[in-house]
């Protein structure tokens, strides 16, 4: 044993030397690379229509930025992961993005449950993180409650509360004032994002003049909606106010095949997708749904060109989360430029000062003092939303008048009050 010792020692020393050289050279290359690309992870639900648009839209933004020479000479590089709509898969992807793929920021998921699972990891790994489509109020509320820890997460979409307000604002104009409607039933799927949405509806609908007669929450695995529509009809409301995202095709098709005579208005994420017409075989005719950006609308000068560029590249218009993801790549990289660094704390500070005209409107974040810290601001002149309607295979904006490119109409089986004009 002792005789072997010198040889073993030599080997050990040699190995140590070699690894030091390796580590050294690695350190050198990584400092060189630090001046190189801005790396953004995109974790999304590739198998769901809403989620599939997220990496695609982000890629368009990255390509456009790179075509113009990048950010201060730094290219934008995306690393994409399919989370299969699973929180556990998303957490693994997030860890991998931070530790192995060395990204500087993460764009992830349209599902609130997934985003809420990622939020603590964003805090632990000090990784700037933004969601393009989850709506739960809890996301910004968590930032507000424990700012020092959770300040790395941003809410790049409107909270459920803001969305309910947007629906109420539109309902007031087009249903209460436009068609003398007085009563509503809330119908929403049981999920994290609809709890605050329903609370918001219950608060704002009566204020705009729609009395809430009933409130139905159903399991997202529901396939037969006939009992639900039958109960709603029993309450005799003027309108059904929806909160649906995980489901969409089935209630819409059964609403049509049952010829439920009550119009539907509200948040219907799947209806925002351009392929929804085909998936429902046109049953979505007359369905009213909220969107914050859409093809053929001039929300900002960037909205329509992005939608067309997306269609040219992927053959379809983007889902709602596509618009937000596209904007996010732009304002994250803009924040890197303003911060002059990808250091997480500096990046967060710069993101908080975001004032970016995107496809959705003018994007700013609520501050630390506000309850919805780091959520995008809702309101006129910022991001304010439109009421859309499916008509003959197309999504048309019917409200507000300054962006409208269509007039509201309903299929003949719907009794939709008396039009004021």
């Amino acid at each position, binding site marked *: 044993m002792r005789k072997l010792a010198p040889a073993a020692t030599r080997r050990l020393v040699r190995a140590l030397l070699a690894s030091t050289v390796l580590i050294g050279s690695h350190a050198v290359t990584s400092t060189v690379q630090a001046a190189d690309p801005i790396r953004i992870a995109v974790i999304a639900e590739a*198998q*769901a*229509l809403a989620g*599939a648009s997220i990496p695609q839209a982000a890629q368009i933004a990255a390509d456009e930025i790179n075509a113009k020479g990048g950010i201060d000479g730094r290219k934008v590089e995306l690393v994409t992961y399919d989370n299969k*709509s699973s929180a556990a898969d998303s957490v693994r992807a997030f860890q991998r993005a931070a530790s192995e793929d060395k990204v500087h920021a993460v764009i992830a998921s349209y599902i609130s449950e997934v985003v809420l699972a990622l939020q603590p990891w964003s805090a632990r790994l000090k990784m700037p993180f933004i969601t393009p489509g989850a709506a739960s109020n809890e996301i910004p509320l968590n930032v507000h409650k424990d700012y020092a820890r959770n300040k790395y997460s941003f809410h790049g979409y409107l909270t459920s509360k803001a969305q309910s307000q947007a629906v109420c604002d539109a309902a007031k104009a087009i249903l209460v004032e436009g068609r003398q409607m007085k009563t509503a039933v809330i119908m929403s799927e*049981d999920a994290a994002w609809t709890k605050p949405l329903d609370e918001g509806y219950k608060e704002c609908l009566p204020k705009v003049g729609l009395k809430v007669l009933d409130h139905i*929450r*159903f*399991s997202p*695995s*529901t*396939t*037969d*909606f*006939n*009992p*639900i529509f*039958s*109960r709603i009809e029993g309450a005799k409301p003027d309108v059904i106010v929806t909160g649906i995202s995980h*489901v*969409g*095709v*089935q209630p819409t*098709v*059964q609403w049509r*095949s*049952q*010829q439920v005579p009550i119009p539907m208005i509200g948040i219907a994420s*799947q209806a925002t*997708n351009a392929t929804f017409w*085909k*998936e*429902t*075989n046109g*049953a979505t005719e007359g369905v009213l749904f909220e969107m914050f950006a859409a093809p053929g609308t001039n929300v900002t000068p960037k909205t329509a060109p992005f939608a067309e560029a997306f269609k040219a590249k992927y053959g379809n218009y983007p889902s709602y989360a596509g618009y937000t993801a596209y904007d996010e790549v732009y304002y994250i990289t803009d924040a890197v430029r303003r911060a002059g660094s990808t250091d997480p704390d500096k990046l967060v500070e710069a993101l908080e000062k975001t004032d970016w005209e995107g496809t959705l409107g003018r994007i700013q974040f609520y501050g630390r003092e506000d309850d919805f810290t780091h959520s995008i601001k809702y309101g006129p002149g910022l991001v304010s939303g439109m009421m859309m309607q499916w008509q003959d295979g197309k999504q048309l904006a019917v409200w507000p008048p300054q962006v409208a490119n269509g007039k509201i109409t309903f299929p003949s089986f719907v009794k939709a009050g008396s039009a004021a004009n």
Partner: protein
Amino acid sequence: MTAIQILIDGFAISALYALGATGFTLIFGVSGVLNLSHGALMVTAAVVAWAASSELGLGAYAGAGVGVAVCTLLTLATYGLVVKPIDRSRAIPPEEKEIFILTGTLLWGIMIQEFIAYLFTSNAKTVRPIVEGVVVIAGVRTPWNQIFTAVICWGTIALLWVLVNRTRTGKVVLAASMNPRGVTLLGFELSRIYVAIWLIYGVLAGIAGVLLGQFLGVSPYSVGPLTASAFSIVVLGGLGSVSGSLIAAYVVGYLETLTAYLISPAYRTIPSLLLLVAVMYVRPQGLLGRR
């Protein structure tokens, strides 16, 4: 009013369950195979019918035909690629074959499910209905499609009854389900009978899948629940008993509809699953089971 609505709604959904479960129980009765890719086969029929009629623009009838045809081929592939090789394998001890077939068909079903999700995303699809519009029956607005579904289901089941009881092939199949060895002793090739029975099963699953796609819509997420519902109907009715399955389909269908209307749609499946557990305790052979 609600009572009539429950009667009508429950009748249509039960007819659909009955058709879906009939093929499933037939396969078990004849060859002792529990095919856990059942739901995936039905979903394939519906999604292919959707793609053919809406994406390719073939129209409702041709779309439905393509859906049933593809489902039948896939069912034969299930037999040829999964069930038969396991059944013939010498590496697997005979007493373990059943569990291997269960696992094999389950994995096959998951593969089909993932493949559909990959091609068409996991969002739900609805097949263009062959008949549209509504009719008012005793004050209840009923879609024609619902009536159509029930009629086709019962028509198909009746045809199956004629096939099994009135034709030579059907009688051989029936005999094979009672005593496979006896049938071979009479000079019939069991492997041919198996192919015939899987072919019938494929057509039944295909029709049930397309009708389900028209009636409620399907997505890759429906695969598990569809297999589970066929499984529980068949266990409730008695494994291998076709008439037991038909009765069980109506018990489950009406129990679900009653729950959905009178308690909440969210609890729809719970009472029928509780009933299944109770049946397993009290009468493990099912309502009309033979073993």
